[in-house]
């Protein structure tokens, strides 16, 4: 069984890769690539249903065993089932479904974003308590300079701070960002190749 899964994964990966690189020489590979990607999209849709069932299973288990926070789990399961049922019966375009989206889900995520602002500020304050080193000091000082340089202050810009903040953003930070992104891209590339060769198998079997 393990050999079959590895074989299917490698052949599918090579077909998609071949469809991208060799489409001019073997046009049929483009069709194969499209077919495999369509299958992947359908499977991802089925996986979404599996994920929801998993969510229900975990939270009903918590309710059954009266674990800590089970009231929230019960609320989650009830909300999920009711929203799912309404979505099936009324269809997603119905005004009631739009109210659920714009009146509950979007404001809740916006509220979480508000909490995130406070959480980030708190994390920055505690950074030096958690880890006192040169990088932490540079990190905090840079954040303070950027804030002072980009904030609209009642007495106007602070001399030199704005120029320094712009230099940090456009030269220092941009260079650093590019360096990090190149590193991440190289890491993703070698990880992808390992999966393609079957050296890493995140798809079943020991």
């Amino acid at each position, binding site marked *: 069984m393990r050999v079959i899964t590895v074989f299917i994964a490698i052949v599918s990966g090579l077909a998609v890769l071949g469809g991208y690189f060799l489409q001019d020489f073997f046009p049929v590979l483009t069709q194969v690539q499209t077919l495999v990607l369509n299958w992947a999209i359908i499977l991802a849709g089925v996986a979404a249903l599996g*994920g929801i069932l*998993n969510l229900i299973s975990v939270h009903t288990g918590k309710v059954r065993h009266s674990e800590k926070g089970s009231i929230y789990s019960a609320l989650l399961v009830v909300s999920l089932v009711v929203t799912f049922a309404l979505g099936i019966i009324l269809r997603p375009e119905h005004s009631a479904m739009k109210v659920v989206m714009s009146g509950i889900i979007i404001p809740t995520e916006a509220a979480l974003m508000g909490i995130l602002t406070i959480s980030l500020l708190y994390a920055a304050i505690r950074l030096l308590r958690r880890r006192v080193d040169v990088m932490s000091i540079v990190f905090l000082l840079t954040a303070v300079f950027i804030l002072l340089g980009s904030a609209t202050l009642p007495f106007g810009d602070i001399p030199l701070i704005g120029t320094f903040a712009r230099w940090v953003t456009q030269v220092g930070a941009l260079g650093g960002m590019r360096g*990090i992104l190149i*590193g991440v891209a*190289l*890491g993703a590339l070698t*990880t992808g190749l390992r999966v393609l060769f079957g050296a890493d198998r995140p798809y079943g079997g020991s």
Partner: protein
Amino acid sequence: MIIIELIILAVIAFLLLVITLWKRKSPAKLREIPALAQLSRMLGLSVEDGTSLHISLGSGNLLDVRGGSALAGLAMLRHIAERTSVSDEPPVASAGDPVLGLLAQDTLQAGYQTAGVKELYAHTSGRVAGLSPFGYAAGAMNIPQDENVSVNIMIGHFGPEVSLLAEASERGSVTNLGASDNLAGQAVLFANTQESLIGEELFSTGAYLGAGASHLASLTVQDILRWLIILALLGGAVAKFMGII
């Protein structure tokens, strides 16, 4: 142009294969990364004191460019599952993407199978905690606090919302370790965790946890490519300065 890309990819693949075979024979020398040294230590401690590990895989989608970090997270999860599955409190993995959630379950199961304790695997130890980045952060926040977790390992695609998860863990006196392929996520993790991994260090977890020669070879290939890119950038700058290009 596509042919040049194909040739580059083929050369990288060849390098990876050759260096993998070479790494099987020669021992690895790795520089110390404090976050990974701590992770290795915490894995042993969690088994000894009977606490659990929470591995957050983020909301990376395997069908787009964020898939690389998700795959790196899964490789680490596999190794952690093998090492900690016999603990009184087995590891819990959570994901913010359904496909990643299913693969996390499969990876955990394979880890248990390799460790010879397949019967201890529970399907609820691999979870989909939410379907959007904030939904995932909100859904996973309670795991470190409620489930006797001693270490919260966040490896995958995370944006700034990871701060909520790290903050919740810290309130529960849980040690945080983190890495993200997203720049905002990395900055937030640097401020929020005891130790964080920067940039490509995210992809080196397997090599440092002893996942095999292919992981070590990946690091060597990345180093070779990095030097080639540095030389190309410097060469380009010199050529531009001299008016050649």
